[in-house]
């Protein structure tokens, strides 16, 4: 398996089994994976140890995923956020895309598909950073 070193992923989901299984699958595939079980925990984490890509659930006890997304972006506008949810809702999906999430994915998800999305999100982040820092675009 090709190592995806350098891509630091934060996985935020309140469902323990899903979070731990997915984290393990991503780690095996070479990602550097952090996990958080709530929006609040995620925010505390990103401040100290900023990830490059966040995979975020929406329906969680406490802070809702969409609010967590806004706060994460405030902390670091260049971080890319992928929503991965069990509650299908087109309106909220479109709104979140407009607000700048990288993609809106639905559970259940094939691990390879999630992996590709994380890679693509990482590429976009790098391109945007380069434009921003080199050319002020």
């Amino acid at each position, binding site marked *: 398996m090709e190592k995806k070193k350098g891509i630091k992923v934060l996985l935020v989901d309140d469902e323990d089994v899903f979070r731990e299984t997915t984290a393990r699958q991503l780690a095996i595939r070479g990602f550097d994976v952090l996990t958080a079980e709530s929006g609040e925990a995620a925010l505390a984490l990103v401040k100290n140890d900023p990830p490059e890509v966040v995979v975020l659930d929406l329906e969680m006890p406490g802070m809702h995923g969409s609010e967590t997304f806004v706060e994460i972006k405030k902390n670091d506008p260049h971080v890319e956020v992928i929503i991965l949810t069990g509650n*299908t809702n*087109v*309106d909220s*999906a*479109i709104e979140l*895309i407009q607000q700048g999430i990288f993609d809106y994915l*639905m559970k259940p998800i094939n691990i*390879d598909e999630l992996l590709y999305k994380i890679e*693509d999100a990482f590429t976009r982040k790098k391109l945007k950073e380069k434009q921003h820092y080199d*050319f002020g675009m």
Partner: protein
Amino acid sequence: MLKAITSFSRQLLARFREPVLPAPDPPEVEALRLTFKSRFHSFKLLLAANTRVLESMADLQRALQGEEPFSTAFVQARCTSISVNVFRMINDMENIAPAKYSELRQSFAAIQRRIDALLSARKHHSDPRLVIPLEAVNSDMADLVGGKMANLGDVKNRLHMRVPSGFVITAAAHEMFMAADGLQKEVDRLFQVAGSDADRNLDLVSSQIRQRIMSADVPEPIYLAVVEAYEQMKKQTNGQEVRMAVRSSAHGEDAENSSFAGQYRSELNVTFHQFFYYYKQIMASKYSVQAIAYKLNRGFRDEDIAMCVGCLTMIDAVAGGVIYSKNPLDSWDDAIYINSTWGLPKSVVDGDDLSDLFVVARDEPLTILRREIQEKGYQIVCFEDEGCIRKQTRDELKNRPSLTDDQVRMLADHAIRIEQYYEGPQDIEWTLNSNGDIFILQSRPLQQVESIQPPADLDLQPFATSLLIDGAINVSPGVASGKVFKVAKRVDILQFPEGSVLVVEQALPAWAPLIARAAAVISEQGGFAGHLANVAREFGVPALFGARGAMTTLENKEIITVAADLGRVYRGSLDVLLQWRRPTPRLMIGSPVYEMLRAVSDHIIPLHLLDPESPDFSPNKCQTFHDITRFIHEKSVLEMFSFGKNHSFSERSSKQLYYHVPMNWWILNLDDGYTHEIKGKYVKLEEIASIPMLAFWDGFAAVSWDGPPAMDGRGLTSIMFRSTMNPALAPGMRSKYADRNYFMISKHYCTLSSRLGYHFSTMEAMVSERSRENYLGFKFKGGAADFKRCLGRLHFIKEILERYGFQAVVNADNLNARMEGHDMEYMLSRLKILGYLTLHTRQLDMIMNNTAAVNYYLTKLTKDIDTLLGEHLNP
């Protein structure tokens, strides 16, 4: 299409003629390079999103064939995925060509609004009553109290028959219960997360949902309303505690042609102390394994079904059973069929024991035609404290009729009156108390099926030695053959192979989820009045019950033929019987879930934007999501071309392919399509890093072209005529750019626009380790021959492509072929075929009126391709 491609080339040419900007400074080049990279990244994301949309649309199209069951969750997940990816394509397009196609957003919003209106149709109840006494219920209130209780209200209040007193907890209460603490939202989430492969996860989803419901609190307003209704009930028994039968009365449960009844739980002999526990059990039974499987297989929408609950005074039954007011297996037979057993009617419905059958003719007076008295080994009776127990029948009762002739006639009379009231045959559950009073417990429409009678002269004597079972009860007609699979415990369900014959000891409702996957059903116990028999008839699966000794006589995995109408089972697969097999009903078609999908698909799948040259090929003419994706795909390719052309920086300018000599092939590098930075105007084949382009070229250069096929006079005239009409076609008159063939490449992507001779073809390929994103698209059109022969060539190519796994269609004068989702190696082998065909179908249109020549080329081309792939289809 010809027009489309000519114009596409024209647009390309126009780009060439545009003044090219002077070479920029190095920092500007760096900025340009970055902008280009960013656009190409958006382009790749756009292509991936496009593939996802097409994939989901293909899923919807498959579902529309109505052969496989699917749920609302499936439709919703696919539609959301399509919306999200179309919207992302619009965003990506915006990154590629800022502000150029912003009208797409309005088209998207309009289509999305129409889809939303179709998907979000959860019912709300305008009547806020949470509990209604049975005296106030009638059949106009089915929405509020469920079909079962609505009908029972009629029997009590309009037909004035004896019905236990009681009340109904309504659909409004169900809505309140499910809304509290986001329970409904959680249920929807669990369904979605389970995925479309719900069958496998059914046990898990079912138990998760039922646990959530059981651990929820009953909202206080429901609690108070029930307490009040119960106090009213107690007044009729002088304040004594009342034992209740708590029965499901869900929406759709009593609908014609559906056997919902029995899917849900009913609890007998419940004390008030335990009432709310059982109320929740019944709410949870909406999500039992058999209820979920049934809804899925019939295409019922979970959100259409509110679980109302009837609470009736418990009748301590001496006997009970089910009446069919007509023969369910023969619509010509209007005799009344009464199934009866000792104790509560539950064992008749559950099919776990044999029961008596009385057949009554509608003569005046009513005549009992037949009495089939069975040995009733067990009966279900009320426990003294609470609940029920299955106990052995006393020896002196076992073989005695469970009804007197008078009681039989009284029951038949009840059945006739109820049938007349509802104007159709009925399925009636009844019970008899110790005073001999008849109580009606439910009445619903009876479904009847046609019997299939074997021809009188059919000689089955030669198969007498293969006869395994004879004299069993036909509960669902038809003939089927399959391997025996015995099911004894719940866990066996998971291993049940599709198309097997289900063999069980008792005809329990728990086996119902297997019916849709079984070829036939054989049970040692049970009769045609049981729930499992109902489900078998509904799904058109032949079934034999009362097949004594089946579990020991039949061997697992042995192939048998079940002839339900004859009551027989034979060893082996008997064609002489199987010829009466009837087609399986396609239950999804016309179901609520199916209709929802059909309506939504109308806004997603049809393609109106066919011709890129038409003035209607514009963002505001997009009527469906398919239109939007088609439009974006077309424009994004053009935009990517134009960017490289309009900005002159060396590695983005097109270069001429050098393969032994300079070729008439031009290459535009989008990203990482070259092995290194190339200076000068040529690029050598070995400097190309594009995996799909190299595979295409492999096929293109593999076999040298024999030159044009021999032509007749007509062929020549045709070429001359068409060359006159279109100067660009005439070899001597080519403009500088007209004969160029363009590749746009990156490492994993390649698009080609080519014109060889007189035909045009375009090819697009995305090939990497990401199998799911892989695809090939190939379009072909044109030719110098007349229309008929050009069309002949299109079908000729189509046939070859289909032989190698492409999906191909010929529309008007063009061929469109696609392939997606295969692994890299497979995709590359198919690219070789496209390369080969691009060269070797040159001018083949000219011979399309000569069958012998067509056959010669078909053989030659496929032989070449097989050699090319190292495949030998006919060794």
